[in-house]
């Protein structure tokens, strides 16, 4: 045997081994590419869900693809019946909600959907052994009972006007889910629902694959296959969109701009309730001073932040409610007014020191502003905020830290926070501004305490009269203008780029935490190919 033939033999053996290994790991079925048709859609998102079980919080804002809620939101965020046949009947005292359920609906395993599944879903979420971090959203629920197979009655412990908005929550199959451990069982990765799509595969960290549910009660979707690729890095997502591997993706505004000249693609700038704000803790003598709060509110250049930090994809925020929300109190927009900010501080006794930073009774007008490490958007907001504050003579030190580092300091220090739930004003205003929420987890971080605000928030929470609620929320927003315990900075648009192959695509008003249910594919089951 010469050296050369030995080498060739080794190489051949190696190649055979590689091929054998590759064949061993292959899955059955023929290979199909993503293709250029309209029957399959592949989109790229930045984050994947931690679980696909509604019992642990998946899809609680709706549009979960695999599941349906009792209700759903349309493009304008109005409630529409889904698994219910109509909007709930609400008792006079606002504490009993009755839902009539659709008949003849089946889960994707063929089992019928009944009121017991609804009861099971809500009761399991509220069970203290269930590790659902969002269960507090349902804390108004006292009991949920089935009346026959097609009616469900919720009893609330207090009248809660926004409750119907919570019932977009997906309904799990009792028959399947109750057989497994709710926290770690297979229902987290192999969900069974009534929704327009069925999960075919979830490769964690890579992608989720869905196929249309042929027996969907709303009619079989035209888009046959739906793939959600999980691509954390923005540049890689843009590259894969450009290469044709993806049909659509969420992108930062600067990268979305690079697709503007591409005639085959459309850009969607989804309006959101996703705000960024600075918490101004009441316990800190600087940030707790109403004059300082108002001066900061006037000194901050929101428009410049929208233009420079957000590349224009967003709008100034004056409170948690976006300026284009029907609940926004007109007349509470504040233009930047540095002169007035300075005068407010002068009048309150904050006098400029040698270094330009103001002092009062020997105390420097300075505080620390935290943001979560690695969050570039919050960092840029924080730095812009510090720059604006300096012009009014207030020294803001910007620091980064993890949740664990930041949280213990927030009774005294400020934080660049983000949140936003579009479905009802109660969802943002109550946890952020009501005094009962002070120090409760990450809620009311400013320790905001205002008697009028508390009263109005309670009124708006309990009354089901839209006029009463609107007046109450107007009063809250005006009180916030007079005593801005948070400096609200911007509402951020979520930008999506997608192939121009389907008719009439829209976006909803999106929440801060936007997963698979957000984006132009929120109503994928209704998509129609272009003629």
């Amino acid at each position, binding site marked *: 045997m010469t050296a050369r033939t030995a080498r060739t033999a080794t190489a051949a053996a190696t190649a055979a081994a590689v091929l054998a290994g590759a064949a061993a790991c292959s899955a059955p079925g023929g290979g199909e590419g993503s293709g250029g048709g309209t029957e399959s859609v592949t989109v790229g998102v930045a984050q994947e869900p931690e679980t696909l079980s509604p019992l642990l919080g998946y899809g609680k804002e709706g549009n979960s693809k695999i599941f349906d809620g009792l209700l759903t939101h349309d493009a304008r965020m109005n409630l529409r019946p889904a698994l219910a046949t109509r909007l709930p009947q609400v008792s006079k005292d606002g504490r009993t909600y009755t839902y009539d359920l659709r008949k003849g609906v089946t889960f994707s395993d063929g089992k019928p959907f009944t009121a017991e599944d609804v009861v099971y879903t809500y009761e399991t979420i509220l069970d203290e052994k269930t*590790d659902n971090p969002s269960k507090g959203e349902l804390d108004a629920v006292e009991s949920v009972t089935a009346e026959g197979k097609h009616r469900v009655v919720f009893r609330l412990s207090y009248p809660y006007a926004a409750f119907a908005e919570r019932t977009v929550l997906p309904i799990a199959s009792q028959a399947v889910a109750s057989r497994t451990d709710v*926290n770690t069982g297979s229902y987290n990765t192999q969900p069974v629902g009534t929704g327009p799509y069925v999960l075919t595969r979830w490769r964690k960290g890579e992608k989720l694959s869905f196929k249309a549910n042929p027996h969907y009660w709303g009619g079989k979707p035209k888009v046959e296959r739906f793939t959600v690729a999980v691509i954390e890095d923005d540049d890689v997502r843009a*590259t894969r969109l450009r290469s044709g*591997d993806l049909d659509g993706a969420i992108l930062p505004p600067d990268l979305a701009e690079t697709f503007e000249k591409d005639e085959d693609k459309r850009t969607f700038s989804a309006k959101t309730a996703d705000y960024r704000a600075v918490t101004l803790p009441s316990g800190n003598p600087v940030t707790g001073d109403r004059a300082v709060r108002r001066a900061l509110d006037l000194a901050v250049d929101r428009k410049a932040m929208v233009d420079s930090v957000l590349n224009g994809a967003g709008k100034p925020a004056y409170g948690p409610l976006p300026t284009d929300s029907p609940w926004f109190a007109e007349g509470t927009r504040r233009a930047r007014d540095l002169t007035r900010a300075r005068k407010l501080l002068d009048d309150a006794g904050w006098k400029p020191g040698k270094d330009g930073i103001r002092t009062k009774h020997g105390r420097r007008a300075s505080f620390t502003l935290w943001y979560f490490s690695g969050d570039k958007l919050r960092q840029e907001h924080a730095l812009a905020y510090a720059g604006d504050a300096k012009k009014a003579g207030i020294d803001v030190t910007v620091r980064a830290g993890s949740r664990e580092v930041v949280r213990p300091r927030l009774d005294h220090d400020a934080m660049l926070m983000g949140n936003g739930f579009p479905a009802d004003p109660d969802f943002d205003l109550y946890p952020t501004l009501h005094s009962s929420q002070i120090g409760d987890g990450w809620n009311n971080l400013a320790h905001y305490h205002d008697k009028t605000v508390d009263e109005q928030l309670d009124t708006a929470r309990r009354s089901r009269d839209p006029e009463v609620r609107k007046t109450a929320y107007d009063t809250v927003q005006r009180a916030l203008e007079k005593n801005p315990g948070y400096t609200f900075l911007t509402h951020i648009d979520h930008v999506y780029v997608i192939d121009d192959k389907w008719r009439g695509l829209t976006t909803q008003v999106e929440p801060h935490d936007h997963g698979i249910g957000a984006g132009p594919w929120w109503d994928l089951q209704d998509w129609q190919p272009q003629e």
Partner: protein
Amino acid sequence: MSGAAIPAAVPAAARLVGRRLLAAVPVLAAVTFGVFALAAASPFDPVQQYAGAAGLSASQETLDQLRANLALDGPFPQRRWEWLTSAVQGDLGDSTSLRQPVAQAIGERLGWSVLLCAAGFCFAVTAGTALGVAAARRRGGLLDRIVTPLAYTPEAAPPFWIGLLGIWLFAIRLDVLPAGGLTDSGSDVVTAGRCCGTSRCPSAAGALVRPHRRAGRGLRSPGERGGQIRTPRPRRYASGLMSLP
């Protein structure tokens, strides 16, 4: 080769394996103790990690309940002992980030990891040996002068950058491999042909990317990314490359 050598070699090998296995016991004990101690010493809060985005709007009551449910209270030697006793009985516990049993999480990924490593190893050995021998035939020759720097370049370059370059070359310019994962994003099935073709890119680049990937992932459990080329954070680094057509 003499016939007597083989029976003599077998007990020797068995003794070696036995010794190694015995040595692994104290090592594993020390390592698990170290991991639990480090976790206890770090400010990292597993409840916040588990709750994710929802943790920032959860009530304190919910967060406290989660802590109790996840059995995260109590001193760490006690928690380690509880983990160890169940691990010995075959229960490795549950992954809080994956919401599934750890044993299942490892099992699902093992095959792909083996494929990735095996393919990468075979490629490295085959190409490396062939090029090395060819270059050594004429020291200082043209081939030697090309191959030697070529061998050093991947060592010196940031691995994620090579990963990106690989995506750009094989997926965008040549269009022979998918830009990530084992198949095209839109394709749901893994076939031998596809798998064979695609495993080359991730294994070559993936092997290079790996050290960075580990560092970047922080406290998540290892191996959860499957066979995907994952390009870590430093995004601006990459934008120059990405602006190429």
